[in-house]
Each structure stands twice: as C-alpha cells, then as structure tokens.
C-alpha cells in the first residue's frame, strides 16, 4: 500500500507552526517512513502533483491569494487541518480587523516610521500582487475544515500525535498539558 500523502502551507501566518512541525526533531525520520510529502515548504514542491490525503494549513486568509491556495487545498486533500491560532481564529494578523483597509494600507506604505523614502506616496499595485481582504478570515469560514490543532504555535508533540493517529487510524490520546495554554 502506498504511503499517505501530506501537503502543508502557510497562509497569513508567521511560519511558526511549520517551525513547530520541524520541532518533532528526529521523529521526522519516522515521519518520512510513514508519509510522503507533496506541495509543502518542507520539500519545496510548489504545486499539487497528485491528490493528497492530509492538508495542513497554517495561517488564516488575509488576501485573495490565501483564499485561492486554501481552496486548492480543499480540492486536493481529503482531510484539512487548521494548524494553530491564525488558521483557527485569524490570530495576530486579525488585529487589523475592524480598522478600515484604507487606513491599514496608508499606515503601512505612507505613514509608518520606516517608509520615509516613499515620498511620492505610491501604493503598491503590481498586477501580480494579491488583494488584501476586508478582514482576516479563519480558514473554516472559507472552506470546510475537518480538524483543528490549537496553539501558538501548537506543540510539536501535539502535531506528531495528531498526524500519527490520523495516518495509523489509532485512537488520538492527547494529554491535557498539550492543549492547555494557561
């Protein structure tokens, strides 16, 4: 039987959740025995080359490209997991929610302390640039999400336990310490 295939991506996140994936340390050797990776920063495959079993999403959706990638993941993965605070709730990027987009962009490109060289007040508008959404959306408001792994970042042990349980079909036993944050 072929190995289950995993894809991962970081949308509006900080890559901290991916760092946490790497924090499984030497278990990564066991992981590649268990699964195959497809589209993911881990192997740098940029586009889906086949249907996957598990898609792991870090980050919420703050721009049109995030939405596009997320929908691609839904199409190409049987199971989608929201990994971490930003994917689940929008996280830190969602702090702009409630502030008009215009104000955010003007602060970022015109008014901020590090943009003194932009004296002509240029607003980036290359056709290749994705558009910022009216607010940052958690993934489950855009597509169906099957599982949620909380944390900022979720602990490596939690990610390991969840992925192994999914792949092996064993019961998931998560000690309370792995999902409590106070």
């Amino acid at each position, binding site marked *: 039987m072929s190995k289950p295939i995993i894809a991962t991506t970081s949308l509006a996140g900080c890559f901290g959740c991916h760092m946490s994936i790497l924090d499984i340390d030497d278990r990564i050797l066991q992981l590649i025995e268990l699964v195959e990776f497809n589209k993911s920063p881990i192997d740098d495959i940029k586009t889906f080359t086949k249907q996957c079993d598990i898609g792991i999403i870090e980050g919420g959706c703050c721009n049109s490209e995030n*939405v596009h990638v997320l929908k691609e993941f839904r199409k190409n993965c049987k199971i989608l997991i929201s990994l971490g605070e930003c994917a689940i709730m929008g996280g830190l990027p969602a702090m702009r929610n409630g502030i008009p987009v215009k104000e955010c962009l003007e602060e970022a490109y015109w008014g901020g302390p590090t943009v003194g060289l932009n004296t002509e007040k240029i607003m980036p508008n290359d056709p290749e640039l994705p*558009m910022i959404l009216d607010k940052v959306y958690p993934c489950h408001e855009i597509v169906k999400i099957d599982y949620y792994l909380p944390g900022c970042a979720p602990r490596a042990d939690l990610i390991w336990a969840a992925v192994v349980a999914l792949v092996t079909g064993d019961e998931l036993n998560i000690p309370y310490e792995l999902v409590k944050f106070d």
Partner: protein
Amino acid sequence: MKEKISRIVENFGNDAARLMDILSEVQSEYGCVSCEAVSAIAENLHISEVDVIQTRSFYHFFTEEQVGKYAVYLNNSVVSCMNGMSDVADEFQKQLGVKFGQKTADGLVSLHYTACIGMSDQEPAAIINDVVFTSLTRNKVAKLVADMRAGKAVNDMVTEFGDGNNANPIVRSMVKNNIMKTGPVVLDAYEVGLGLSKALGMDSKAVIKEVLDSGLRGRGGAGFPTGMKWEFCSREAGDHYVMCNADEGEPGTFKDRVLLTERASMVFEGMAIGAYAIGAKEGVLYLRREYKYMKALLENVLTEMRSENLLGNNILGKGFNFDIRVQFGAGAYVCGEESALIESAEGKRGEPRNRPPFPAQKGYKGKPTIVNNVETFCAAARILDRGAAWHKAIGTPESSGTKVLSISGDCNAPGVYELPWGMSISEMLTMVGASDVQAVQVAGPSGICLPPAQFDRKIALEDLPTGGSMIVIGNKRDLLKDVVLNFMEFFADESCGSCVTCRSFNMILKNSIEKVVEGHGITKDIDDMSAWSEILRKTTRCGLGQTSSNPITTTIKNFRPLYDARVKNVEYQSDFDMSKAVVESCAVVGRSAEIHE
C-alpha cells in the same frame, strides 16, 4: 480648556467617584472628551489618564471624536425598525449628505445609531442633544434638518408637547405617556407621604416584615422577593445605601419612563421607606442617559419633597435622615445589571462584579446596598400605605400585586398597562387590539419569543416572568431577520466584553444568524448555534450573557420551520464572497474588484 475643566471637576468635589458626571459635563461642553480633556480631568482628580479613558470608552454617549453641534442619535431597535426607521434614517442621510456614523463637513450635525431609547410606543424616535423627538417621518426629518441648519435651539425644535408632566413647563417634551390602563398599586390615585408616614411610625423590622408579607417581588424581571433583599441588607453592619435602578434598557421597555414622569415622588418615597428599613442615609437614583430630558422635573420633585420634610433631615419629625441624588448613565445596557450599575455610579466602567458578595452585602462604595427597580419602590410605597394583606390579595398566589407592562409593536394601542399578575397573553392581545399575531416577545430580547400555541400562558413570575417589555410581532414580519438578527446585533454591541464567551459568542451568534438570514446557512449552523448558546449561558458572569442567546434558542425551539426553510441540508457552505471582500483594497489602488473571483 484646562481652567474650565478644573471648575467642572471642582463642582463635583474633585471626587473620582463622580467621573460619570464630570465626563458628561465635558462631553456636553465640548462635544467630546478629547485627549486634552482626559489629561486635565486626570490631573485634577489625581488619577491616571487610563482610568479616565477606560470609563470614557465604555459608554456610547461619551466620544473621543467631536460629535456634531447637533448630535442625532436615532434608535435602531426592533420596534423602531418595524415603524419605518429605515425611511427616517434614509431621509436624514439624504438631507445631510452624510451617512450614519459620520458628521457633516461643517461640523453642524453628526448621525449615530443607538439602542432602544425607551420610546417603543412612539417610534421611530431620536435624541438630539438630550431632547427626544418621537414618531418621526420623512417630513418631520426634513423640518428638523431645516431647523438645525437655521441654528435653532434644540428645545425650540419641539413644537407639540406630550400629556401629563411631559407638558410641564420645566420638561416641555413631546414624549407621550400613553397610559392605557391604570391599576390599583402603581398608577391609581396617589398622595405623597402616606406610606412613608406609616412606615416611620413602625419599627424598621416591622417595615421589612410588611414588605415580605405583601409578597412583593422585584419588578425588574428577576422577581427576587423584595422584603428578603431588604432583610439581608439590614443585617449587615456599617453605612447602608439605597439605589433605584432606572436604567431600563431592555428593548421594548418604557414603563419606568412613564412612572418617573408621573410618579417620581412615589419612587422617591419608596426609596425613603427602603432606606428606613435597612438604615440608610443616602440614596441614588441611577437614571439612563436617554431620559436626561426629565432631569429638571426629578430635581424639582426632590426639592418639593425636601420642603415637605419627606426627604432631608429629621423626616416628618421622626429623627430619620435620608436624601437622594440622581446619577445619570451614559448609554450602556449592561448597567441595568445591578452590580454594573453600582460600578457605573462609582464612576467606573459598567462591568458586572463577581457575585457573591451580593450588593446587599457589599454594594455601592463597598457598603451594603439595596438595588430595586423603579416600579418596586412605587409598589413598596403603596404597600406601606394600604397594607400587606391588601397587596397580597391582588394577582396570583406566587406573584402578588400588579405589573406595569410596556406593550409595543404590531398592535392598535401601544402604551403602558398596569395589570394584576396572571393575565394570559391572548387576553393581553385582545386588550391591545392585536390580531394576526406571529409571536409575542415576552420580557424583551433577553426573554422568550412566544408562539401562538402558547398564548394561553400567564404573565406571572411562575409562568412568564417579565420586567415589562412585551413586543407584539405581526405575521407580516420576517421573524428571523427583523427580530432575531436585530436582537443579536444589540447584544453583540452591548456585551461589556469582560467575559470571553460573552464577548465572542454574541458576535459569532450574530454572524451565524446573519448567515442563515442571507440564505447561506446549513443545518449544522442551527445545531452549532444551539450548542454555542448553551456554552455562552453557562460561562458568563452576569445576566446579559446568560440570556443573550435567548432570541436564537427560543426561536429555534418555537419557530424551527422558519429556520429549516432557510437552510440547506449540505455538509458545508461558506458565505464568503471574494468580490465583496476585496472592494475596499481595490478601491484604494483603483482596481476593479471583478477580476478577483
């Protein structure tokens, strides 16, 4: 500015506990409480700026940005919307060329929405600089805008006056009482002082016993036995306080407004009786800011009562001292919760306290305090005059006396009705001339949405308890959109944000019902709303979060087909709309939003 603010602060004895009054005066004077004003207030009160800011930011009648010279607060509650609020709002926007939430370029007028202002029997209504304008129409709005442009004083913009004390030269308000039915306890003929003089002739314990025996229970809606509350409080040591909760913010309630207009002395007399019973020297009437137009009337009644020796020192020659001050809120529904009300009266954010200790043990200024509803104090005054047995004989065995109801919505005769407890909803509907009724919202948004099949139920604390709000919803209404969504928007706005679940779930529930109303809902959304409502109910500190999901849960229970007709039975459906989501950012750079589908 600095000197002026020093004077304002000095007028309130440089007392940080009077911050609400100080902010209120500064707001009226400058149309805002600016950063500069905050610094000056903080300096004079010797508190930090953050302490001032946190109170200012809590109440929606205090603003950091300057409001217009005329600040229009239009009520967008359910009944206002039923009676044509959107036309009125549209006319304001058209006439002034600005949207709600904005101010005209010349700074003359700003437009704001506000929650129920206690005028549900004469909506749509708006408050402009503390003056109330009722039964608005497009024509009336055009006239108001013309008057504002002409620089007319707000009081001069009122051309007709209401009945009773509304027409009193010191009030001159167009608000109508609409007293449709009087009852024996509160709205019957009344002579000030009879109850108090009898009380002062009795031992304070005997007064409490009288109230206990009368079966009087709190008229704010919770129905806690009044005598028991007084008894608990009287047992505590030290200074005691009496507070009257006149913050009626439950959408659809307006009876306290009428009682304070026509029975203010009865309310104050009841407070004095309560004070004598528990041993208090000071009382506070906490009045919602929306009723500021009554200020002169209430102050006048207090002055009269002092001159008749019914308040002040050595009342009626019995050696009892008690006086009352009026404390205004500044627009926050949650302040109707008694511990939040106390916090607010102390000049702080109106965030409910953890209980216990209850206010009867540790209330205003940390001292034992009774907090009772306006109507409860009225009833207490009458009970001391006519006796416990007389009161006990009215109503039902578990709910003695009468209830003053505020009835509004789709009926011929909205207004105030004082009825003995125990009347059925269908009898009530006949009385107010309501036919073709889809539902009755009993006890406001935090109560229940009652279907016709249950109209034989009784208005009584043991069956359908209510603080007085009764909204009749006709068959032509879209119950989920016009009522449930409006209520959830209200709760999402009014949650104080202190409890995480209340802060977030009210918003989430509002978004979910919106998703259903807009046709994007699925069956799972209904199940989710039920489950989340249960979590919200169990995990919040005060009554707001414990009841704010009721519009959803009671309609899911009683009007399930309305939901089923609107949702799809699919596994997942998003209401995300890319072209809408990028409208703003595309506008900033001048791109078309179409290409991002």
